[in-house]
C-alpha cells in the first residue's frame, strides 16, 4: 500500500512538474517570438471567456496566458511586481477598480481607433487607459403580486417610508453597491448620498447578506418586496440548470430606475493595457478583439451582459426587458468616489 501511495504521489508530482516545464518551453518560445503571447490578469471567472480567448488564439496565433483572481488581488500583485510584471492586460468586472489601477499608475494610455470609435466616451477612461467591454445595469427586482410597478420611480424614492421593511440588498462590501453609491455621490452630492444610505438601511427587510441571487430568492420567499440586483444575474437565473431557480426568476418583475431623469446606473466589465506590458501590441489587439462582434455576441449570449457595441443585439432574455435609458455619468467618477462611498456606508450602518 505504501508503494501505491508513493506511485500516485510521484505521478502527480510529475504532472505538476510537467506543467512547469511546459511553462519553461513557453518561455523560450517567448524569447524567440515575443509577439506570440499575451498575459492576461482577469477577474472575469466565466467559462465563455475561455472560448473567446481560444478564438483569439486561433485567429491571431497569439497565445493567451491567464491569471485568474479578484481584481483587488491582481492590482496588488501588479503593484508589487512593478516593472517586472508579466501582465499585459488587466480585466475587471467594474469600472471602479480600473480607475484605481489607473491611479496607482498600473495602466497606460493606448491609441486605438477601433476602441475609440466603438465605445461611447462615458464607458471608457478619459485618457484611454481602460475600456468598457460589457455593460450591466443595477436594477430593482420586485414581487409582482405585492408591488405595483407604477409606485416605483427612482433609486432616491426607495427611502420613502412606504418601503419600510421591504428592501433587500446585499452587503456594502460588494463592489456593485459601492459603484451605485459612488454614482449617487457624483449625481447628488455627499450629504444627499448619506441621507439616502440611512433611508435604505431604515427600510431594509433584513440585515444584508448573501449574493444578488439570494436577494431575488428572498423576494419570492416573501421576506421583502424589492431587491437590488445586477441585470446579468437575472439572465443567469432564467437559464439556471436548477428548475427552482428558473421558476423564481420568472416570478419577479424588473424595474429600471430613474428613467425619467438621469437614467439607470450602469457599470462595465472592462480592460486596460498594463503600464509595463511586455507585449503591448498584442494587448491592444486582444482588447480590440474583445469588442469585436463575434466576441461581444458570446458575452451576451452566454453571460447575459449588455454588449458595449451597438451593432450586436443583447441576447433574447435581456432584449425582452426592452431598451432603457442609461446614466451617462463618466465611469471615472465611480473610482474617484469609491472610498467615500464605503465610508458613508459605514456611517449609515449599511453592513
Amino acid at each position, binding site marked *: 500500500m505504501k508503494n501505491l*501511495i508513493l506511485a500516485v504521489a510521484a*505521478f*502527480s508530482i510529475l504532472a505538476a512538474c510537467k*506543467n512547469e516545464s511546459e511553462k519553461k518551453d513557453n518561455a523560450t518560445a517567448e524569447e524567440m517570438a515575443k509577439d506570440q503571447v499575451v498575459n492576461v490578469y482577469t477577474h472575469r471567472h466565466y467559462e465563455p471567456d475561455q472560448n473567446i480567448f481560444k478564438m483569439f488564439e486561433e485567429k491571431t496565433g497569439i497565445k493567451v496566458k491567464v491569471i485568474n483572481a479578484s481584481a483587488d488581488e491582481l492590482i496588488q500583485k501588479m503593484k508589487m511586481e512593478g516593472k517586472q510584471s508579466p501582465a499585459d492586460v488587466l480585466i475587471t468586472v467594474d469600472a471602479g477598480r480600473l480607475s*484605481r489601477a489607473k491611479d496607482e499608475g498600473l495602466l497606460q494610455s493606448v491609441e486605438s481607433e477601433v476602441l475609440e470609435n466603438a465605445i461611447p466616451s462615458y464607458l471608457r477612461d478619459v485618457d484611454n487607459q481602460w475600456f468598457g467591454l460589457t455593460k450591466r445595469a443595477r436594477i430593482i427586482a420586485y414581487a409582482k403580486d405585492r408591488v405595483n410597478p407604477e409606485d416605483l420611480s427612482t433609486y432616491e424614492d426607495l427611502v420613502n417610508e412606504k418601503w419600510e421593511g421591504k428592501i433587500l440588498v446585499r452587503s456594502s462590501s460588494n463592489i456593485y453597491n459601492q459603484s451605485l453609491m459612488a454614482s449617487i455621490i457624483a449625481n447628488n452630492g455627499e450629504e444627499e448620498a448619506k441621507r439616502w444610505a440611512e433611508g435604505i438601511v431604515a427600510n431594509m427587510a433584513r440585515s444584508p447578506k448573501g449574493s444578488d441571487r439570494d436577494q431575488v430568492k428572498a423576494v*419570492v420567499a416573501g421576506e421583502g418586496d424589492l431587491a437590488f440586483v445586477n441585470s446579468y444575474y437575472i439572465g443567469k437565473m432564467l437559464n439556471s440548470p436548477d428548475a427552482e431557480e428558473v421558476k423564481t426568476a420568472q416570478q419577479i418583475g424588473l424595474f429600471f430606475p430613474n428613467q425619467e431623469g438621469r437614467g439607470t446606473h450602469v457599470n462595465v466589465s472592462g480592460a486596460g493595457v498594463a503600464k509595463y506590458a511586455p507585449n503591448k501590441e498584442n494587448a491592444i489587439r486582444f482588447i480590440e478583439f474583445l469588442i469585436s462582434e463575434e466576441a461581444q455576441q458570446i458575452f451576451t449570449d452566454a453571460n447575459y451582459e449588455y454588449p458595449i457595441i451597438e451593432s450586436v443585439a443583447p441576447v433574447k432574455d435581456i432584449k425582452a426587458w426592452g431598451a432603457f435609458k442609461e446614466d451617462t455619468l463618466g465611469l471615472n467618477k465611480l473610482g474617484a468616489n469609491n472610498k467615500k462611498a464605503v465610508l458613508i456606508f459605514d456611517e449609515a450602518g449599511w453592513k
Partner: protein
Amino acid sequence: MRQGGNKNKAFSLKTRLKRLKRDSNRWSVFTLAIVLFLALPIVFIGVELFSGPGETWGHIVEYLLPDYIWNSLYLVFFCSILVLVLGVSSAWFVSRFDFLFRKQMEWLLILPLAIPSYIVGYAYAGIFDYGGSMDLIFRQLNLDFVRIDIMNRAGLAFVLSISLFPYVYVSARAFFLNQANNLLEASKMLGVGEAKTFFKLMLPLARPAIVAGLVLVLMEVLNDYGAAKYYGVNTFTTGIFRSWFSLEEPQTAVYLSALLILIIFALILFEKWQVRKVKFTSAKSNSTQIQRKEPKGAIKWGIFSVVLLPILLGFILPVAQLIYWAILTASTVFDFRFIVLSLQSFGIAITSAIITVFFALLLIYFSKWSALRFIKNVARVGVLGYAIPGAVIAIGIMIPTLALDKWLIKMLGNFGIDSGLIINGTLIALFYAYAVRFLAVAYNPIDSTALKVDNSIPDSSKVLGVGNLKTFFKIEFPLIKTGVFSAVILVFIDVMKELPLTLILKPYHVDTLAVKAFEYASDEMVMEASIPSLFIIFTAMIPVIFLNKLLIKK
C-alpha cells in the same frame, strides 16, 4: 532591602548572560535560522505595524471595530463549545468502543475538513433556502416547510464548527489510541466506572492534545473569509479585506492583521500555560492499543448515533447537496480536465505537506536539542502564519521574494542574461508560502505527541554516545509516527482547499481544484462550483484512508 533586590537582579542578569553563552549550541543557531526563514513574511507584516494604521483608523474604530470584536468573540466562544463536544465525544467513542461501521466512521470523521468551509456554507444555504432541497422535500411530502434561516451569526458558528471539528477529533483520538490503555486498565482494576474514568481521568490527561486541536480550529475560525462574507457576519478578517480593498488602505489592513495576531498569540500562551499544568509522559507510546468494548442494546445505538451525527452534518448532508448540484450542472461543467487537475492538486498538496512537516520536525527537534529554554518559545513564532489571512501572507511572501528576484535579475543582468522573475510565479514561491501558512497545522499534532515521549529514552541513547540525528530516526521518530502522519494528512487537506495564497502566487497554467471551485462560486455560480468541490473531497479521501490505515496499524 531594596538595594539587595537590585543587586540580586544584576547578579541574575549576569548569570543569565553566562548561561546563554554556555547553553547555546549549533541547534540553537539552526532553530533561529529556520524560524527566521519561516517567520520572514510575518516579520515583514509586523514591521508595517510601526508605520501605524491609515487615516481611516478612527473611522474603523468608531463604526466597525466593536462589531468585529463582538462577532469574532461570539464565533470563538460558540465554535469552541461545539467543536469540543463533537470532536472529543466522537474521538472517545471510536477509540473506546467497537460498533457497527466503526472502522469506516473513523476516517469519515476526518473528511468534513476536506470541504472548504465556504462551500459548506453555500451547501447549507442551498439546503435551507427558498426553493432549496428541504423546501423541495417538504413540498413532495405535502408538508408546510418552516424555513430555517441559517445565514446569520449562529448559522456561521454552526457551519464553521461542523467543518472544523476534525482538528480536535484527530488530535484527541491520537492521544486516546496511544496513551489510554494502561490508564484504562488501572482505572478498571480500581473499579472506577466508565463515565467517571472518562471525565476524571482521560479528559484531563487528553487536555493538551485537545487544546492543540482547538487552537487550530480557532485560528481557522478567525481567519475565515468566504463563509463569513456570504453569511453577512463582519469579523476581523472581513474587516481586513474591507480596509485593504474597499477603503484602499493596506496599512490599516496590516494593522488589523497585527491585532488578530495578538489575539492568536494570547490563545497560544493560554495553551502553553494550561499544558504546563499537565505533565504526563509515556515511554511506551504505541506499544499497546486500547481494548475496545462492545456495548449492547440501547447504549450501542446511542453511541452509534453520537458518532454518526457529526459525520451526517459535516460530511453526508453537504456532500449530498453538492452531488445534487453536480447532477444538475454536469452537462455544462464536467470535463476530463478535472482528472488531470486532480492529479496536479494532489501532487502540489502532498509535496507541500511533506515540506511543511519536515520544517515542523526541524523546528521541534532543533529547539529541543538546543539547551536554551527560550528557544522553544521563539520556535512558536513560526506557527503564527496560520492565523493570518492567506492574502495578507501572500504580500508578506512577495516582499522578500521579489526583492531577491530583483537582485537576481540585476546580478544576472551584469552577465548579460535577461531573466524574468525566478522565484515569483513559480512553484517554489508557492511551496514556501504553504509552509509559512500551514506550519501550525503540522507543528501542533507533532508537538503534542512529542511531548508524550519520555525524555529518558532519547537521553539514555545519547548517554550511550549515539548522536541526536541517529537517536531521532531510530527511537523518537517511531514513537511520534502517529503525530507525523496526522500532520501530513491535515496539511495535505488544507493545501488542497487553500485559496487566496494560491490565487496570488500560483504559476500560469498551474491550476488547482480549489481555484476552479472559486472561479465559479465567486460569480454566484454556486451550483457549478459543486463538481470541482467534489473532486477536492474525493482526492482528499485517498490519503485520508491510506494514512489512517497506517495510523491504526500497530
